[in-house]
């Protein structure tokens, strides 16, 4: 099992750091899956995570100048590692003006992901900073726990409003209630509602647009069968929603959410070459 990768381009480094920062905000510990051409940050929906699951997929070619991976075995050419993304985020934080950043899988006192940053310096030789991040190697028999979650059979799919606006709305609502209701319909309308004994607040968003899901004709027809104006809603933990919104430093190219009434809300954020899916289960 070997892994070595190198980033030389500052813009790629910056982009990669931002992805890692976003993941770090969503999960304390997560799984990093490495394949020959992609990296995945996965958080599976165990009870311990509050039912949240995260699936973040990147094409390595868009970030790394060099990428060599040898999986556990020839027919299973993948590596699954358990790590604390915050560590990776911190390691990359001070590397923003680096000449190169190399990431490799090493075995020091324990398996580690070593991030070696070569920084420019005034002297003849560059400064080298190494960060050894302890990781856990996940054995093959557990790989099934980390399969890509399928897109649920949603009732409504709608584009999200500008994330910054949504974030400031939700942030203020967080002070009033622990739960928020997201509802949306196929006419591009979305409401964010909180309701407590003392007060209820609703923010209305209009003209958001609904993404066309050309995948399933049945899906479409069932959707058409629905009353376009009827709202699908789900009541979710407001902190989880805020975690997602707060972690976005750059506006995504596409941001949408799929709501399965009273079951789950599925967010999809696309940033050029990175896709992030975030599932929040609905609460009673």
């Amino acid at each position, binding site marked *: 099992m070997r892994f070595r990768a190198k980033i030389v381009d500052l813009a790629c480094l910056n982009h990669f750091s931002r992805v890692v920062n976003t993941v770090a905000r969503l999960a304390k510990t997560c799984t990093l899956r490495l394949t020959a051409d992609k990296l995945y940050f996965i958080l599976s929906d165990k009870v311990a995570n509050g039912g949240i699951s995260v699936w973040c997929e990147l094409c390595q070619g868009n970030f790394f100048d060099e990428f060599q991976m040898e999986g556990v075995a020839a027919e299973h050419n993948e590596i699954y590692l358990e790590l604390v993304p915050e560590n990776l985020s911190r390691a990359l934080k001070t590397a923003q003006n680096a000449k190169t950043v190399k990431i490799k899988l090493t075995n020091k006192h324990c398996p580690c992901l070593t991030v070696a940053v070569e920084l420019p310096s005034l002297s003849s030789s560059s400064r080298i900073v190494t*960060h050894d991040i*302890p990781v856990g190697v996940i054995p093959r028999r557990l790989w099934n726990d980390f399969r890509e979650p399928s897109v649920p059979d949603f009732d409504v799919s709608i584009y999200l409003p500008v994330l910054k606006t949504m974030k400031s709305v939700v942030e203020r609502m967080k002070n009033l209630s622990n739960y928020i209701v997201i509802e949306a319909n196929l006419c591009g309308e979305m409401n964010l509602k909180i309701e407590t004994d003392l007060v209820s607040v609703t923010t209305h968003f209009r003209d958001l647009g609904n993404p066309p899901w050309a995948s399933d004709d049945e899906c479409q027809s069932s959707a058409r069968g629905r009353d376009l104006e009827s709202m699908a809603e789900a009541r979710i933990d407001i902190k989880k929603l805020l975690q997602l919104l707060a972690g976005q430093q750059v506006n995504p190219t596409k941001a949408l959410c799929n709501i399965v009434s009273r079951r789950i809300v599925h967010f999809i954020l696309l940033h050029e070459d990175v896709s992030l899916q975030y599932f929040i289960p609905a609460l009673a």
Partner: protein
Amino acid sequence: LSRIGDELYLEPTENGLSLRAVNSSRSAFASFLFAPLFFQLYERGSPQRTGELLRCKVLMKSFLGIFRSLPSLEKTVGKCLILLKPQASRLVVQLHCKYGVTKTHNLAFQECEQLQAIFSTQQCANSLCAPARVLAEAVVHFPATLAEVTLGTGPGGRISLRNYVEDEKESGRTMVTELWLAEDEFQAVAVAPGTRITFCLKEFRGLLTFAEASNLPLTIHYDAPGRPAVFTLDDPLLEVHLVLATLSDPESSSQSPTANSASELPAPPDDFADDLESYMIAMETSAYEGGSRAPPSPTFPLRTPGPADSEPEEEEEEEAVPGTPPHKKVWDGHRHAWVTRGWAEPPPEPCLSLQFRSLFFGSVLTPGGPRLAPTQEVLVEDSDGEY
């Protein structure tokens, strides 16, 4: 100085005004000596009845509060007058500002004994000098919460900085960061290969910030693990010293109780007795801090000096350099009591002012926290415990 302690000790001396601070676990000490030339007017005043000059300490917070907003101070304040009024027990700080406005702050002070650290940079076998910027850039890679960092030497003359991980089981979970600096990034390097010391980052960062702001190169003097490390800044008008305890090496602690006691020493006292000249007096005062017993104090356990320890000190008291005032007890008798026990140090260098004694006695223990033998009680708990 506020990064180190809560109280600011002021001592006017003939070499200038000295501002000092020490931290609660006595594992960090700093002093800033402003030469008389730094001031427009510097008057030490007449010595008190006891033949000494008044020295005092004030609350750091109160003092800092006067100088709170630097940018506005720079714009409005023309002159600043600091004077000590012993009769009124007040330290007066007067800011003469623009437009005829004068702000006078009266701070209550407490008289105190001399806060002296005893140390000698010349005793330190290794030294490094680098522009503050280089060190500041190095330190930025470590998290703000990191407690201790290990400075060491490596192949090719390179210098390394690495975060210190307390114990083995932590190492499986903690991220380890290591930074290598080439020799030519330093202005001066005089270190023995394979040496390393571990010290607390927080106080060091404080000094670094100051050094960066004043654009002064910083020199690090260190010796064996367990011996204090001295960080200095030198300027014609200002001398700055920061003395930090360092973690002693696990191997050497097996010799304890001597590990942290005066008896574990690299050289017998005799060597030092002859070597008065070579001591570099890092601080201005020449009063010799003596005494060999710790008074009962709420902070430190009562110490019963073993015979081995107390005697040498007593002798050394006799050897005080002629001309220095007779040593006196240094304690206030309460929480700011000073102990004179050395900390992994050669015993009694005769007299020298600035012998860094007691400061770190037992304050920095090996991670496992070895208990010293009963004759050598730990007076200062391992500051590691705070982290």
